[in-house]
């Protein structure tokens, strides 16, 4: 049982947390032709946009209800209605999301009522689903906001089996995949490929690997997301033969989907490491009735070999982890699988999944907490987002970037951590980091009597002369 150490200081220093609000926005960005509109002041959106632009190095569609003094005091529902109308009119999106901010929630803005007003006032846009979701930034973190948005999308858009006449298993090869915020576009690509190798058709909700994978499209400009899960697919989820749920944070969304559609689900905390991936492959094998493809068997054997090669470097290696609960739990278990130890762990919020983190305790806090913990437990490598650079420098240890945001390097969003292949690559990377530490190095000892010339400040000239003269051939 992991001990959770609560926040015990007033000031958050070097914050680890990213807001629920932008987490929700990210979930909407995983749908095709979507537009999230943050209900708050315009700064909430501007900051969120920069956050994702720097991380993905892509244009990010993100709008705002632009609450001002008047709407903040007098009521902001009208701003939501007008904002939705403007976006619908200008961009004709397939999906509009309205995550709320701390400002809107504190004001007591009723975003559900605002959406209803929009429906009443502008019936011509009835075909465009609008999903309000309550995601104030004074609670939760990016991971929870993402999960809440997916849950709200399912609740709002997915019809019940009765309404739509869907039937689990009618689309024999379809598998719904609910994925948490900790999976990168690179992870999702890998996951889809694995599922497809069993002859199954994955419908990934939301699918950032199709929208924010960094591809160069035909269109020169799009105000909306390009790529992502098709909103129309949401209507077919009830016909799938199974739902895979990746990430503990997605459980509520999964419950919602199961209630609506009756499709049986299989839940995984994460897909890092041999055993976690084995569990996924075994489920796919059973769902599809197909044998495990030789390619995956091979990748599994390659991972096992890498585990052996890497265990010398990673065994007893001491890691400090900072990240949202699912990512933290996944990394800690993967590390434990090769004998490495998570000696310092910090999560921005508490979550039930942290109970499964392979570490003695998790501190709810910031990167300053992580830095202190890492120092006191003599951590050797830090795993954190790009904000960890400074901490790692002060600690004098290397950093592996994972999680949001990664703004000082390229391609962080494309990194594949999961599956046999992703785990193998991660292990190699971590083992190589350990090698750079030159752990076995023994500090050179200079004997007080040594005759070594470089120990002496001035080399005696006559000495050097004897050295050459004295040789006899």
């Amino acid at each position: 049982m992991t001990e959770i150490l609560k926040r015990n200081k007033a000031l958050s220093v070097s914050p680890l947390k990213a807001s629920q609000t932008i987490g929700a926005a990210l979930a909407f960005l995983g749908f095709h032709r979507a537009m999230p509109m943050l209900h708050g002041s315009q700064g909430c959106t501007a900051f969120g946009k920069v956050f994702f632009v720097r991380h993905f190095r892509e244009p990010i569609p993100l709008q705002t209800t632009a609450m001002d003094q008047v709407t903040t005091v007098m009521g902001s529902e009208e701003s939501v209605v007008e904002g939705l109308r403007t976006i619908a009119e200008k961009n004709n999106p397939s999906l509009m999301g309205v995550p709320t901010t701390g400002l809107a929630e504190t004001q007591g803005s009723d975003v559900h009522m605002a959406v209803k007003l929009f429906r009443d006032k502008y019936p011509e846009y009835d075909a465009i689903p609008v999903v309000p979701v309550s995601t104030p930034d004074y609670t939760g973190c990016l991971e929870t906001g993402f999960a809440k948005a997916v849950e709200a999308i399912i609740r709002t858009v997915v019809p019940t089996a009765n309404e739509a006449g869907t039937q689990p298993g009618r689309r024999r090869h379809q598998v719904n995949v609910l994925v948490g915020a900790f999976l990168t576009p690179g992870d999702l690509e890998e996951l889809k490929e694995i599922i497809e190798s069993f002859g199954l058709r994955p419908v990934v909700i939301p699918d950032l690997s199709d929208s924010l994978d960094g591809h160069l499209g035909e269109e020169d400009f799009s105000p909306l997301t390009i790529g992502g899960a098709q909103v129309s697919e949401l209507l077919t989820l009830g016909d799938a033969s199974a739902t895979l749920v990746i990430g503990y944070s997605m459980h509520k969304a999964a419950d919602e989907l199961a209630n609506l559609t009756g499709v049986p689900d299989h839940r995984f905390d994460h897909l890092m490491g041999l055993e976690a991936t084995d569990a996924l492959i075994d489920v796919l094998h059973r769902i599809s009735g197909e044998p495990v493809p030789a390619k995956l068997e091979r990748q599994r054997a390659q991972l096992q070999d890498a585990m052996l090669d890497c265990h010398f470097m990673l065994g007893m290696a001491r890691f400090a982890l900072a990240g949202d609960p699912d990512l933290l739990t996944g990394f800690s278990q993967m590390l434990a699988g090769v004998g490495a130890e998570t000696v310092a762990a910090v999560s921005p919020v508490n979550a039930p999944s942290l109970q499964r983190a392979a570490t003695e305790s998790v501190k709810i806090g910031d990167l300053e907490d992580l830095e202190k913990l890492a120092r006191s437990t003599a951590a050797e490598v830090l795993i954190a987002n790009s904000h960890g650079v400074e901490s790692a420098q002060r600690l004098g240890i290397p950093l592996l970037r994972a999680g949001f945001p990664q703004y000082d390097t390229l391609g962080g969003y494309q990194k594949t951590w999961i599956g046999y292949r992703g785990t193998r690559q991660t292990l190699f990377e971590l083992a190589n980091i350990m090698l750079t530490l030159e752990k076995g190095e023994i500090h050179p000892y200079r004997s007080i009597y040594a005759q070594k010339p470089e120990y002496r400040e001035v080399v005696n000239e006559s000495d050097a002369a004897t050295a050459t003269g004295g040789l006899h051939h």
Partner: protein
Amino acid sequence: MKQKEIAALLDEPACAHNKKSKSGCAKPKPGATAGGCAFDGAQIALLPIADVAHIVHGSIACAGSSWDNRGTRSSGSRLFRIGMTTDLTEQDVIMGRGEKRLFHSIKQAVEEHKPAAVFVYNTCVPALVGDDVEAVCKAAQARWGTPVVPVDAAGFYGTKNLGNRIAGEAMVKYVCGSREPDPLPASANRLGHRIHDITMVGEYNIAGELWHVLPLLDELGLRVLCTLSGDARFREVQTMHRSEANMMVCSKAMINVARKLQDAFGTPWFEGSFYGVRDVSQALRDFARLIGDDDLTQRTEALIAREEAKIDLALEPWRERLRARKVLLYTGGVKSWSVIAALQDLGMQVVATGTKKSTEEDKARIRELMGQDAVMLEDGNPRALIDIVRQHDVDVLIAGGRNMYTALKARIPFLDINQEREFGYAGYTGMVELARQLVLTIESPVWRQVRSPAPWATAATQHVEAC
């Protein structure tokens, strides 16, 4: 090198087994031989001399696949890490330009790197076409004023072990005795006891492990004139003849050096090891015994008592985790008996050991430690090693790096003990690292994961047996 000279090197009078079986110097068998050649042995023995330009005279295979590939460490000069070879071409060989190229190579090395000396390793091709390496070295030394030492060690002369001796021979012949030791530093006198000069032959400072031992020697007032060759400098090798006691550290690779220094300068020597608590203490006692200074003997005993108590405490938690674990030991250069003692100190059980390079004397010591029924492996082919692991339910295989991947493929925990390794195990403190590394691999969770079948594998398709 003439056949006669090679025979003289193989006929080592100081080897105890020279009177009977010659297992230590057996001929290689075509088709069933592992291990390096004479060039390999010579280079390995001398490369750690840090401020020397080591030039491999030959075509590319010799230096190309062996340079910068060793765990030895230097506390200063890093010149030895720079690979240098004449990289002979077909034209050089056909037209006989090898000597000329070597001469210019030496010039280039001297001018660009200002080495304390140049060592030239002769290899098969130039030896075969008859390059006069010794003459070239002599001429180059006269021309540029930097010592140039020929090491005539063509691979076909024989095994790695012979190469070690050739290297030692070159040092004794060309370098030892060419300079007197530096006067003792003024600070040495303040310590109030006599300072004695010693050397260590066949100690390579792998992973810097000698630095675990040196502080103790400093404390005792033992000045290490030279280690041949870990973290050594050319000017240190020159003074080896003034040592009062020499320690033969690694096997008997350079036993000829110890013997010849004794013949020429009367220096007594002993064979010892810095692996394992018992052997470290014994080595310190042997120095004191050979030097014969009562004060030194007393201080040595006090130091041993202090260090043993300290290390005993540090090892206690590791002993708990290693007790009764079974080891199969298959060492390359490192003496089996020394490591056996070290492992027994940790409470482990050595079920078998390799003796391919062991002398008759080594084997006697092994029997002393492991009992008369000790399993000794002459031929450590991978299949035989794995079979013994299975038969005896071995927990960990300790061997040289080349066997590492054999062990891992067979899903057997492994510890690298050879010269490429990254960790230093010598001295009292080295034992803690050894214990740590053993626990790290034995207790690793990866073994369970690589031995258990995939969840979807049916009983019929299980090809991996848990072991």
